[in-house]
């Protein structure tokens, strides 16, 4: 099911009475989610991710704008008529019901005409449980399951009615690192198997990047960028997106463009033909440098850490923003560990310029 958001806006009255006015939780969203894709909705806390999901599910009514599922305008439909499955941040499994009854619950609500027999419901519930591999635990209560298992029950409950759209609100936030990794692969698998159009909310960029067909990066209710994860990573439209994606994060320097060259401190690190002279932010991805004693980017060397297959070089520079600079280099790269300084060549496609004021990307031709 294709999902289209058209100028979708949600304003809340400000909770802080003194400030008054309104909080714009979702500001003029326009985008289209292709059928059967998994979309990662990504942004820092409070940027309106949950609100967006609530609007799509129908739990909240938009202040402005329209929502279409396929060709249908569902803006004014109540949640139960939209055919959405929703997995909550805390799962919201009914604690007094067993796994089977939790998964069956949506089926038991079906109105006349769609009503199922007891056996049909049990069969459907089992089918959904098998899909998420939770069928061994049908008679347990949610409190007798681990976080990951509860999460799978929640997904089974959301899937059992075969929703047109599956919405997941930070479903992995309560899991430990290992289980998170495992479960996100699982979600990907289930999504592929069912082909349900899925929106996955997270503030963890790695999570979003790893499983999404497309990511939507938000900031304060405004969409910053939409695209395939790698595209967004390689081509951020502004400093916010560049900073938000990637671990370790992008290294940002204060710099300037003079006479077609990008300067960081006294070093001219890159060519920038056709860019007028101005002050800029220079962002260099951690993997964007190659050690070279004659390289133009010169920094103080603080530390070299080898972790598994990566070697990371921790540096310091007068022009840096943030606490430290960290670059990842090939572990067989030659670098003088005893030296107080280090020189790098910069890969042009891993370095980005941003306007000092607007923080918008400046493309180097």
């Amino acid at each position: 099911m294709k999902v289209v958001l058209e100028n979708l806006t949600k304003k809340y009255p400000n909770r802080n009475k003194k400030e008054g006015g309104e909080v714009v939780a979702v500001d003029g969203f326009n985008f289209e989610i292709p059928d059967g894709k998994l979309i990662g909705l990504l942004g820092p806390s409070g940027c309106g991710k949950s609100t967006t999901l609530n609007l799509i599910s129908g739990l909240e009514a938009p202040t402005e704008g329209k929502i279409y599922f396929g060709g249908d305008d569902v803006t004014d439909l109540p949640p139960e008529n939209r055919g959405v499955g929703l997995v909550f941040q805390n799962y919201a499994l009914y604690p007094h019901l067993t796994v089977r009854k939790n998964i069956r619950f949506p089926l038991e609500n079906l109105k006349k005409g769609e009503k199922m027999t007891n056996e049909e419901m049990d069969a459907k519930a089992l089918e959904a449980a098998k899909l998420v591999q939770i069928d061994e635990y049908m008679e347990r209560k949610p409190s007798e399951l681990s976080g990951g298992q509860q999460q799978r029950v929640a997904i089974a409950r959301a899937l059992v009615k075969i929703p047109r759209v599956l919405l997941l609100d930070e479903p992995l936030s309560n899991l430990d690192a290992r289980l998170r990794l495992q479960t996100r692969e699982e979600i990907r698998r289930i999504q592929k198997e069912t082909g349900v159009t899925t929106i996955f909310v997270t503030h963890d960029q790695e999570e979003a990047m790893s499983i999404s067909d497309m990511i939507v990066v938000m900031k304060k209710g405004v969409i910053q960028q939409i695209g395939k994860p790698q595209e967004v990573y390689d081509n951020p439209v502004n400093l916010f997106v560049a900073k938000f994606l990637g671990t370790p994060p992008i290294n940002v320097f204060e710099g300037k463009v003079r006479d077609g060259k990008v300067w960081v401190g006294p070093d001219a690190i890159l060519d920038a033909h056709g860019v007028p002279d101005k002050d800029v932010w220079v962002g260099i991805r951690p993997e964007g440098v190659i050690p070279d004693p004659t390289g133009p980017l010169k920094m103080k060397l603080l530390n070299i850490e080898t972790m598994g297959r990566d070697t990371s070089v921790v540096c310091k520079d007068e022009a840096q923003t943030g606490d430290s600079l960290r670059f990842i280099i090939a572990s067989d790269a030659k670098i003088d560990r005893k030296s107080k300084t280090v020189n790098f060549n910069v890969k042009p496609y891993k370095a980005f310029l941003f306007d000092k004021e607007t923080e918008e990307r400046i493309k180097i031709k």
Partner: protein
Amino acid sequence: MQNGKNYKAWLYLLPAIAFIGVFMIYPLIDVLIYSFEEGFNFASQSFFGTGGYNYSYVLHDPYFLQAVKNTFILVIITVPLSTGIALLISVGLNSVKKFKEFFQTVFFLPYVTNTLAVGLVFMILFKKTAYSDGLINLLITAFGGSAVDFIDGPYWAKMFVLCFYTIWVVMPFKILILTSALSSVDEMYYKAAKVDGTSKWRIFTRITLPMISPMIFYLVITGFIGAFKAYSDVVAIFGTNLNAAGMNTIVGYIYDMLYGNSGGYPSYASAAAIILFAIVLTITVINLLISKKNVKA
């Protein structure tokens, strides 16, 4: 280590245990002993012999049987009704947005009001005097009925007043407990249910009720116990000569046996008290068994 811990735990519990022992266990045993001592005399602290005669006397005393009947009617009518009405009001309160606190305060007021003062209000509502028939009778006659004497009249009328009063008095506490239980149910369950297309009624019966069921059972159990121990409410409405009014309760009977006009029979009182204890214990155990089966939150 383990023993040391145990010893400490008991030490901390000691004040409570001592208190319960002196003021509850000891009197209970004492009453039990009294109840088997026949013809106990306060003045001489002597008795004729031991046996079950006190029980036999009490169980054949028409006043006691009347008291048991009254108490049971009171319990059976007021506990379910008051809990049910309190639930309705709490659900209503929970769904209003504006003036919620105001309404909660209003419903809670009777709780902080003296029983006897509330009793007085009921007198005004129900009592027939030389000057007026009471407000309720005014209403009844206004709608074409004939006035009923609720305080000195027929049994059912008196029972009605007593039940009404009892429900009225226990209501605030129940509403307080239930509204807080209701608001402690996490909003996300309702959201999940809404997305699942659950009707309002099903949300109430399948989600809200089970989730607050521990509190409901708590109210039912304490309600039973409280209603079995009814006494002061009855006095507040019908005065102290309850046997004559035919409105005595078990606790009232015990009191009368001890200190009433025809009192001075601690043995009979003790036997009645033990019977009450046995009834309350049985009902409470049954309640707990049922709740164990049904309440799983």
